[in-house]
């Protein structure tokens, strides 16, 4: 029991006056119960409410006069985010050999790491298709973080790429 007991209680001054000792003990159990209930509640609610954030810096909108930067097409790896959490990828631009992978640990991550060691100064183009979900975009950006890819860009998908996905039948 939680209880307060006050010692003494009424002095004995001048003459013996018998002070009736009333019990000063309060049963604190309900209060303590409540306190712990609140404590549990607040602990549980505060830890659950912590959103993470991923910072994203997009390139500035190119001006009309700007020329697109020229890159060596052999260094370009294109990732197409398709429907049903599939990633289609190919190296180069002309005559691409399309392959399919997924978002699992042994999927895109291995591809990225392997290609990164093969191609120095690799540039990744991420092209989310219309069927892809927001989750796919976040996942791929996450994958960039994990594999520490520095050079990647999010690009609008072209009809050529959409055709490629269709033709590949993967």
């Amino acid at each position, binding site marked *: *029991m939680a209880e307060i007991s006050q010692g003494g209680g009424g002095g004995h001054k001048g003459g013996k006056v018998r002070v009736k000792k009333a019990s000063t003990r309060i049963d604190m159990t309900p209060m303590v119960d409540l306190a712990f209930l609140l404590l549990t509640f607040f602990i549980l609610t505060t830890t659950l409410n912590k959103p*993470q954030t991923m910072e994203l810096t997009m390139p500035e909108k190119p001006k009309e006069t700007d020329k697109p930067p020229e890159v060596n097409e052999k260094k370009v790896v294109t990732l197409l985010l398709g429907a049903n959490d599939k990633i289609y990828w190919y190296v180069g631009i002309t005559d691409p050999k399309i392959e399919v992978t997924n978002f699992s640990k042994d999927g895109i991550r291995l591809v990225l790491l392997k290609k990164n060691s093969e191609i120095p100064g690799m540039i990744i183009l991420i092209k989310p298709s219309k069927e*892809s979900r927001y989750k796919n975009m976040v996942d791929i950006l996450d994958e960039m973080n994990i594999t520490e890819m520095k050079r990647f860009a999010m690009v609008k998908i072209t009809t050529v790429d959409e055709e490629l996905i269709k033709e590949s039948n993967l």
Partner: protein
Amino acid sequence: MGKVKVHRTRPSLDMTPMVDLAFLLVTFFMLTATAVPDEPVTVATPSSVSDIKIPETNILLITVAKDGKVFFSMDGKYHRQELLKKIGERYQINFTDQEAARFGILSSFGLPIGNLKEFLNLSQEDRKNVEQPGIPVDSLNNQLKDWIIFSRMTNPSVRIAIKGDQDSNYPIIERLMNTLIENNINRFNLITSMEQGS
């Protein structure tokens, strides 16, 4: 059976320090807790390994629901009131002070500007039952753009955060990001939840 007299002493434990501590913690958690604002839609954010925490203040939150509806919210009661006046001027809708006050405490909303006045005059209970159609972000009628521009005018230090549902389609997110980029906002945050062991 013989009577065995058990000497009973009432076990008594001084719980005062424990109670003190409990109350200290209760007070602490009560003061640090921030009420979760009620949102018109529930959004399941995608997970990521990113562990940057979102700042508490000066956040402009754009929520994208599963069905592609876009919701807007900004923190700061006074900023919001100012924002409503400005956006009212832009669309030639006159909002009263009372409506501005109500807008100040409103959480997230997703309504075309034309329906906002009516919505603000509803009671708190009725507002929950309103089916919100989302803020228009079409290229013809991009009201979200105006909300963003005017928010940045009222509170220049505001940061843009996008809270998208993981199942929302990419084109709507793309349109949203293009809207931001067109307004020279190249840095924004994507709200994600903690990665669950992969």
